[in-house]
């Protein structure tokens, strides 16, 4: 387009402005730090973990926090801190993959539903609502019973259970934009449907969807932790927040730090992502913008 250079520059300053506004409140700042840390640790876990997370050291089992083992050891002597870091890797991988797949499917189907015939729209809505009406845990248990527990199964469960909400959101947004005057002006000019969808509707739809997505990440982490806790998620000995919780749960009376050290980051990231989503919504909402 015209003035590509200046466009990019201002887009950069706009992103910078949003980040500055996010960091201007203590709660926003904390959530930005936690979310950044979550992803940084997730990416670098294998290098920064001080011990091999699955190496057994039975003599050193159930030790409290020491200088050598910051968060102590579990019932078979594995370093809890290292397990926690590598667990973060699984959690962040799951969060990013599952949410982006669900997002892509949702946006695509939502746009189709809004721009095709009424019958297609109705049947798609029926499917979305049917999927959404399933209790997620029952659905997860059924799928795991059929396909066996694994990371990919969890991704599949999360994608299937969350894409309908993105699709519905996109559909409603597109429906309200479809009759907007600037879209009608495009049609009067003879712009093609893909062009209208990609150049004019997509940029106006993506914002709210991203906010919902950032609030959905805790859900993914929670599902993974919950299923792993039940022994239906990530297979042992691979560490994940859920399996660490499960391990620690049996020893909660004598060695509570294992549960605490996995539970605390779980709560912290969940709250941080939700806060971040809410703050983003407040900042990006044009009606609240001055």
């Amino acid at each position: 387009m015209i003035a590509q250079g200046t466009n990019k520059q201002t887009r950069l300053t706009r992103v910078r402005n949003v980040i500055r506004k996010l960091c201007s409140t203590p709660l926003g700042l904390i959530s930005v730090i936690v979310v950044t840390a979550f992803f940084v640790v997730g990416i670098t876990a294998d290098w920064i973990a001080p011990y091999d997370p699955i190496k057994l050291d039975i003599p050193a089992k159930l030790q409290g926090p020491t200088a050598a083992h910051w968060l102590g050891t579990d019932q078979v002597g594995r370093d809890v801190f290292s397990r926690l870091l590598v667990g973060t890797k699984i959690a962040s991988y799951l969060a990013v993959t599952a949410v982006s797949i669900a997002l892509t499917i949702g946006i695509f189907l939502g746009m189709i539903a809004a721009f095709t015939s009424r019958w297609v729209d109705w049947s798609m809505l029926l499917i979305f609502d049917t999927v959404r009406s399933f209790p997620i845990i029952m659905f997860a248990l059924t799928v795991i019973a059929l396909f066996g527990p694994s990371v990919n199964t969890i991704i599949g469960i999360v994608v299937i259970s969350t894409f309908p909400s993105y699709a519905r959101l996109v559909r409603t947004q597109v429906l309200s934009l479809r009759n907007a005057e600037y879209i009608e002006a495009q049609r009067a000019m003879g712009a093609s449907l893909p062009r209208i969808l990609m150049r004019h509707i997509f940029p106006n739809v993506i914002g709210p969807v991203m906010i919902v997505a950032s609030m959905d990440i805790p859900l993914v982490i929670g599902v993974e932790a919950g299923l792993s806790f039940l022994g239906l998620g990530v297979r042992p000995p691979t560490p994940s927040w859920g399996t660490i919780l499960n391990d620690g749960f049996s020893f909660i009376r004598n060695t509570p730090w294992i549960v605490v050290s996995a539970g605390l980051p779980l709560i912290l990231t969940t709250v941080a992502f939700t806060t971040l989503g809410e703050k983003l919504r407040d900042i990006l909402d044009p009606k609240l913008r001055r």
Partner: protein
Amino acid sequence: MTEHTPLVEINDLAIKFGAHTAVKNVTMDIGRGRIMGLVGESGSGKSTIANAIIGLLPHAAQISNGSLRFDGRDLLSFTAQDWGKIRGKDIAYVSQDPMSALNPVLRIGEQMLDIQHLSDQSNTEKLANASAALEQVRMPQAQARLSMYPHELSGGQKQRVCIAMVIMARPKLLITDEATTALDATLEVEIVRLLKELQTDIGCTMLFVTHHLTVVEELCDDVTVMYQGDIKECGTVADVFSNPSDTYTRNLLSCDPSRIEEKCRRLPIMSNLGLKELADPETDRNRINNTSRPLLSVRHLDVTFRKPRSLIDILTGKPEQRVEAVKAASLDIAPGETVALIGESGSGKSTLARAVFRLVPSEKGEIDFDGTDLLSITNAEMRPFRNEMSLMMQDPIGSLSPRMRVGTSVIEPLIVSGKASGLNLRDEAIRLLELVGLSADFVDRYPHEMSGGQARRVGVARALALRPKMIIADEPTAGLDVSIQGEIFNLLAELRESMSLSILIITHNLHVVRHLADRIVIMYHGEIVETGTTENVIRAPKHAYTKVLLEANLHAKYGV
């Protein structure tokens, strides 16, 4: 308090929004039983004053100086509880949009009951009050209206209900903020007459905020003219309108197209009053190329909207609901001619324009553009014709993509039609913007960073990008101040001369188009009821609706 002091005394009042001063040391009194008109352009601070009197200033606003007294009481020292006691009882407020002021899911009667919740009368008595109030606002079949929902009433009737609701409490002061702006000309006259009668009936004082000079002249006793937060002039309507002492007021009056009797080629504007140029019949005749066939010829066009039937409707054999928006409309536009399509809202004039662009499907009829029937060709065959005609949408800002820079929006037609290759698009965007009188730095602005008039110019620039033969402009001056209206019309007049454009203007504002249009087409309830040259239609209207419209639109005083 005594009956001799004014009801509202504003002394040296200054209101700030952050660093911006919206109202600068304003001193103004509203006498008891008077109707005060407060006029000014958008952004002149007139609504801020109205909001200050009823204590509804936004949080960002800060009163930095002065005093504001109502009936002898200091309004600036009021707490939230004090306001609760005075709002709606002593001071009442009618807002601009009657459509959104009423709750759509409650019946009129329920809403009128609800507003009396503080009174200890029985519901029967309250309902009696409500129907009496409706009668007072001259609502036909007042009793029956109580059980209706807002959507069952017309816009004018809704505004009547709003007024009935506020006068039930017998307020001492009634504030109306642009209460007639959203209404059609014929309805506007009704409401203005009603307010005037009410004022004599219940004797309340009124503050009438508007940008419409004719209405003030008709309705008010006193007038205050505001400009950029300052009061320019204050006095009785007779004095100010016949003998304005302030330059701004004088300019404002001379810019009002409804006050210019002769047909003008250029309308005077605030920044250049000398621009006024009378229309020359000779030039106008030369501009229009009547010898060849018309550029656009619409023949017996029907546009029908169908309400989709649900599965249950189909199974029970319920008939389809149809709305005939355009009925057998015929219309010609010669090359170079400017035609005004006039009608009230809902008369089908915008639908007709959309049908020409095939944005809505036509039932039957012909749309002949430059020798081709647009209704009998495929979408792909339609594309080249979309380059030869442009549609300017009603909402100047809303018709620009909100996340796209103005420069990109303006050249969109070039890209869409595939004519962008080989052009320096930034230069082309600047050229187009300069053509409509905007500076090059508008290229990088976003739609929300412009005023309505600037956005309208961008709309004109975009419409011209492909050098079309015809422009259809839907309400090109709606919501613009008098002077900006003139600027936009001068721009269109200039362009049609330099580019030999045909223009179809869709509007309900007769005042302005009568200067610009060669011919007038009147549309009423989906049908075209009258067509003729501007002079003939205004001098000798044939259809009953045209007569009503003319009466509502043009002040008898100006000889038309």
